[in-house]
């Protein structure tokens, strides 16, 4: 009789009084890439965390190759040959890339010392297939998100595990980087390593997986064979309803809303000019590292520009702190949610109310009920799950945190939205909701800037697309010029 490589049975998990996993089971064969699908908050990360000893389940068993194992700590999981790429990057910013990759399992020299040379060589080796440009001796704090994510992948590969769980490994990778990951995964599966693959990007799932387990609200829905089950069917299993197929609608006007001229910071952003119209969705495409994040941060006043100016409705914006920019009507939905977005242990309400405290206060006192009501209203609109605005934002799944951050700007009455990777880590259902939301914003006369590494997303949303290359605007595409080939042509240096 053949055993499953890994088999999780009847896993229960509660946080306090809230049960987030109800008897979930999952099984996969050796050398299989198995998808784990579900909406934001369905319990995917929690299930993987149980499997990797990061959280303890209340009930359930884990079997590896037919042997039952007890996993109470990450060390137990490593022992059992399970490794994981965490959704929230788990890295020590002060340590180097190599040190992070070997954290908890350092190569020794003379039994006592860390063999840094060996670690660095091995790390370089691991990264060579993923991204050879990453300096293994650099501190992780100096890397960009995408690079960090690659380091996280290298860390999981290092463990030589029999099962690797990948929790949204590509949420900030470009298509090219995804291709390299595919190669790596193929090599691994050829060696008999099994992969559990969590992603909200359905094309990736269809590309990689042979089967998938679908969760909804912490419950096992079904197990499907992937190429044979059509996408709409899978989505219906995930969200419990059919999603309407959306088309791009344009509400752009000729009225200039924001004008950016000569914006420069070091070599990351060099003399960027752009114009955003009322009701317009302006996409910004480009390769990772082309300066898109930096540009948005400069416009939002999070970083200070060396030169250049931002004017709104013809008026140059005075001051260059986020606060003054917010007053002028700007709002940034940052790329790094955990670092720049949320105050983790504070409730959703507090996170929503931060920029608009004045609006929610009377005589210097916050009208908590008003804040609460408005938050609930907004969160119902964006379908926060669970809809409990008094819970700390840190206890929500990543996608739901993103919805709360968007809600923050809706509450503040922001006119110009700066989205940096707006659907990073967001499920298909919510993604459609966020697209609708962006469209609604445009319809109501707001201006929207969307930075996205997902080509389809840029194309789906934008009235106009700016392509960035090495800190400069390389192209301004509109209407039928907006297509993958055009964008790629302008984005790649020397192409």
């Amino acid at each position, binding site marked *: 009789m053949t055993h499953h490589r890994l088999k999780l049975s009847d896993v229960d998990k509660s946080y306090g009084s809230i049960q987030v996993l109800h008897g979930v089971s999952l099984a996969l064969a050796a050398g299989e890439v198995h998808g784990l699908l579900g909406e934001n908050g369905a319990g995917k990360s929690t299930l993987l965390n149980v499997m990797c000893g990061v959280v303890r389940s209340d009930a359930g068993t884990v079997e590896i190759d037919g042997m039952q194992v007890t996993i109470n700590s990450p060390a137990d999981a490593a022992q059992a040959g399970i490794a994981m790429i965490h959704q929230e990057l788990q890295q020590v910013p002060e340590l180097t890339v190599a040190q992070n990759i070997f954290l908890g399992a350092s190569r020794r020299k003379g039994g006592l010392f860390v063999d840094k040379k060996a670690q660095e060589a091995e790390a370089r080796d691991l990264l060579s297939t993923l991204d050879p440009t990453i300096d293994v001796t650099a501190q992780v704090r100096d890397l960009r998100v995408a690079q960090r994510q690659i380091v996280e992948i290298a860390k999981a590969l290092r463990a030589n595990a029999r099962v690797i769980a990948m929790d949204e490994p590509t949420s900030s990778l470009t298509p090219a980087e995804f291709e390299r990951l595919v190669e790596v995964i193929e090599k691994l599966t050829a060696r008999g390593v099994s992969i559990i693959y969590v992603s909200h990007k359905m094309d990736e799932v269809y590309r990689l997986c042979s089967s998938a387990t679908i969760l909804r609200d912490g419950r096992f829905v079904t197990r499907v064979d992937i190429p044979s089950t059509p996408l709409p069917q899978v989505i219906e299993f995930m969200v419990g309803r059919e999603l309407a197929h959306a088309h791009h609608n344009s509400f752009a006007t000729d009225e200039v809303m924001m004008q950016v001229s000569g914006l420069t910071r070091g070599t990351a952003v060099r003399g960027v000019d752009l114009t955003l119209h009322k009701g317009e969705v302006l996409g910004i495409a480009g390769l990772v590292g082309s300066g898109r994040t930096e540009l948005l941060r400069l416009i939002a006043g999070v970083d200070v520009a060396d030169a250049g100016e931002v004017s709104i409705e013809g008026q140059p914006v005075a001051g260059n702190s986020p606060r003054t920019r917010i007053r002028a009507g700007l709002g940034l939905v940052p790329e790094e949610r955990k670092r720049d977005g949320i*105050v983790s242990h504070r409730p959703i309400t507090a996170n929503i109310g931060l920029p608009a405290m004045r609006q929610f206060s009377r005589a*210097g006192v*916050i009208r908590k009920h008003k804040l609460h009501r408005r938050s609930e209203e907004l969160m119902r609109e964006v379908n926060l799950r669970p809809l409990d605005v008094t819970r700390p934002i840190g206890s929500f799944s990543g996608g739901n945190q993103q919805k709360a951050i968007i809600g923050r700007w809706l509450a503040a009455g922001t006119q110009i939205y700066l989205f940096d990777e707006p659907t990073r880590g967001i499920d298909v259902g919510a993604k459609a909701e966020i697209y609708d939301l962006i469209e609604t914003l445009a319809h109501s006369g707001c201006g929207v800037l969307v930075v996205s590494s997902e080509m389809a997303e840029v194309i789906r949303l934008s009235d106009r697309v700016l392509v960035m290359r090495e800190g400069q605007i390389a192209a301004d595409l509109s209407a039928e010029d907006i297509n993958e080939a055009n964008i790629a042509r302008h984005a790649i240096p020397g192409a």
Partner: protein
Amino acid sequence: MNNILTKLPFVSNVRFRDAGTLVGLLLIALVFSILSPSFLTMPNIGNILQQSSINACIALGMTLVIISGGIDLSVGPVAALSATLGAAMMVAGVPVPIAMLGAIAVGVSCGFVNGALIAWGGLQPFIVTLGGLSLYRALALIYTGGTPIFGIPSEFRSIANGAVMGVPTPVIIVAILALIAWVVLTKTPLGEYLMAVGGNPEAARVAGVPVSLTKISAYMISGALASIASLILIGRLGAAEPTLGNLWELDAIAASAIGGASLMGGRGSIVGTLLGCVILGALRNGLTLLNVQAFYQLLATGIIIIVAMLIDRATSGK
């Protein structure tokens, strides 16, 4: 302070975390009341509250600073500096209310200096206020030449020594200040900002929180409360010493921590801090009542602080 607290509106709101601190307090009270019959008498409870009031006043400010992700080691010297300057004004014939305002202004200014160095200068709170600890103490000593200032007007002293319906004025003053601090922390934008800045300063900044001003405010409030504590003290003692306030920071931090404030920032509670102060006050009072010998008082203090934290952790359940 618990008997007063229960009459205040915010107790309905007492959080689960504070219940743990309360259990710690009740256990200590139980032990002492078994060992000493005079411990749980009304006059002695009044005594404990009165004796805790100065630490409570300091600890309120400390809690706000800790929530903002900082620490204020300079509270004692700030208190000494504003006490000596305030007392000097009073002795020189400046009307009492103006001298009081002057003293508070001194405290606020010291807090501003601390806060500005931390927020604008980008220095670590621990080291800035450690420097302040020497600096403000030195100023107080230099100003007074090291000698206490006597001759505090009796009209001022009678405020600090009075009582309203049997409750000592300092207790009432501190209760009012606690209520204000509680309102600030839980009901005003500043409170939200403090929590956000302590929880995740970068995210707070991106969300438009005036991070620097928020931090500076916390230190200014701490400075103001240090001055007020020193005014209460010089009212009671009738003298302003430049050495006053020695080790106040440790008591205040201990009270905040016992009350659940996290020195990593973003977390803390006014009610918890008050309970922490009463725990420390009850401890010292009980040990004195039992006439415990000096070395063993020290021993008991150490053990009880740790045990209180353990009980608290066990009962608050995480």
